[in-house]
């Protein structure tokens, strides 16, 4: 099978199934089938599970580029959009859980939370970014936005930072897990900084070598 068909027929469906699994498990838990349940506080369970899945998928999305470059799998980029859109999907479920199940659609309180509670302000900003990225993730939008698409989608780094920050801020005392997420994010972002620096350095050396080399072809 050619690489394109392998992705279309095998890898993409597999990734789709994997990304849907947390949702399927939540639904099974909600209906108490397949031996699943959501425990004594289902609202908290869904809130935490969807928030964590959104953040996990966001970090996996950011792993695609390093994996392509270091692993020599350039075609991995074909999976990136699906991962990113799924991250938005879970983030949206997360916020809907909060607004519908926890607050009972009390929009006044939701608005107050977004303004007054910094950890929610941060989460809300991350959600708005993910929404913008998901909405402009189609081929048509990519074409239409052209170079600006690249720029806009760099906001994914901001969303990831805000996501980890939001996680950190809502913890009561045990910061071990958010610390782990912060470390993973630091590696993912650090990789890009180092890589672009190295690339710039190489480019500089290359131009230097070109300009300082004796003009060999000159007569």
């Amino acid at each position, binding site marked *: 099978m050619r690489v394109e068909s392998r992705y279309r027929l095998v890898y993409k469906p597999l990734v789709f199934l994997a990304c849907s699994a947390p949702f399927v498990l939540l639904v099974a838990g*909600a209906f108490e089938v397949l031996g699943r349940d959501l*425990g*004594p*506080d*289902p*609202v*908290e369970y869904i809130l935490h599970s969807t928030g964590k899945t959104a953040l996990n998928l966001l970090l996996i999305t950011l792993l695609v580029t390093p994996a392509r470059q270091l692993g020599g799998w350039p075609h991995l980029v074909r999976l990136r959009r699906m991962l990113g859109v799924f991250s938005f999907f879970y983030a949206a479920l997360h916020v809907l859980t909060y607004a519908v*199940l*926890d*607050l*009972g659609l009390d929009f006044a*309180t939701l608005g107050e*939370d977004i303004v007054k*509670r*910094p*950890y929610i302000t941060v989460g809300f900003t991350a959600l708005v970014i993910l929404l913008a990225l998901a909405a402009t993730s189609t081929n048509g939008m990519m074409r239409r936005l052209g170079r600006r698409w690249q720029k806009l989608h760099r906001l994914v780094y901001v969303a990831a930072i805000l996501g980890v920050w939001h996680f950190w*801020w*809502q913890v*009561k*005392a*045990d910061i*071990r897990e958010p610390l782990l997420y912060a470390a993973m994010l630091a590696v993912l972002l650090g990789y890009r900084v180092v890589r672009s620096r190295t690339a710039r350095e190489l480019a500089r050396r290359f131009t230097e070598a070109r300009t300082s080399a004796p003009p060999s072809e000159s007569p």
Partner: protein
Amino acid sequence: MSKYRPRRILPSEITPPEVFFDRRRLLAAALAGGASALLPAAEPSQAQPGQLRYTRNTRYSTSEPPNDYEDITNYNNFYEFGTEKSDPARNAGSLRTHPWTVTVSGEAEVTGQFALEDILKPHPLEERIYRLRCVEAWSMIIPWVGFPLADLLKRFKPTSKAKYVEFRTLHDPKQMPGQRFRVLDWPYVEGLRIDEAMHPLTFIAVGVYGRVLPNQNGAPLRLVVPWKYGFKSIKSIVSIRFTEKQPLNSWHVAQPDEYGFYANVNPNVDHPRWSQATERLIGRGFFAKRQPTLMFNGYAEEVAHLYSGMDLRRYF
């Protein structure tokens, strides 16, 4: 009138663990709805393991239906066994509650080390159905079995210098695996002002739903202070100390701007990161609405006078 009286409990409202809640006791529960404040509960037909003998204190019990035994024993904040709500039920098996010693010290005439049996022996047990409000804005209704803390403290004859009582939880990372990480400054410490400690609502629990406390709920003995956030109700107590100075409680030490010494339930004073105006009552299903949180968790009539003239925003 405060929210927890009078008691109108129906047997059908109680959702006990079938394993021990037999038909005879259901009958007793129905009888207990009567006029008398203290009625003896029926003896169980066969002595179930861990079954306690106690009377029902209806005067101090809420009329709201208690949470399931399942929920009460599987949804716990007990960081000594892990920081997830499900961790304590999973990890508390390593705690050995026999033998158990409680050290009594400080400003009292009777001090020393006491075996658990000697601590408990003189106290008749009673059941009280209390509301529990966690600082995380959720709540439960729990049928505790135990006795008033005041009855225990009086035995040690606190002196006039005893202005506060400090409690400590066991510190043994082998038995309490959560203590291997310094999430809090172990051992867990809590404290009460002496008048709070002597208040008739302040309770030492040794059981729940008529049976000996499971480890994850703070066996073998724990404090229950129903008008304060749950973290004041320290579990698995090994030390009681009478002090002149206000004790430093663990959560206050961890984050002084978020957790105070008093920690009275108060819908008007928010936690810095979330609102305390409402609470989610556990076990009422998906679409149950949050309920308004009550001043002093519904016990204002009994305890508000303890704080008259105090700025509760400052002494949170």
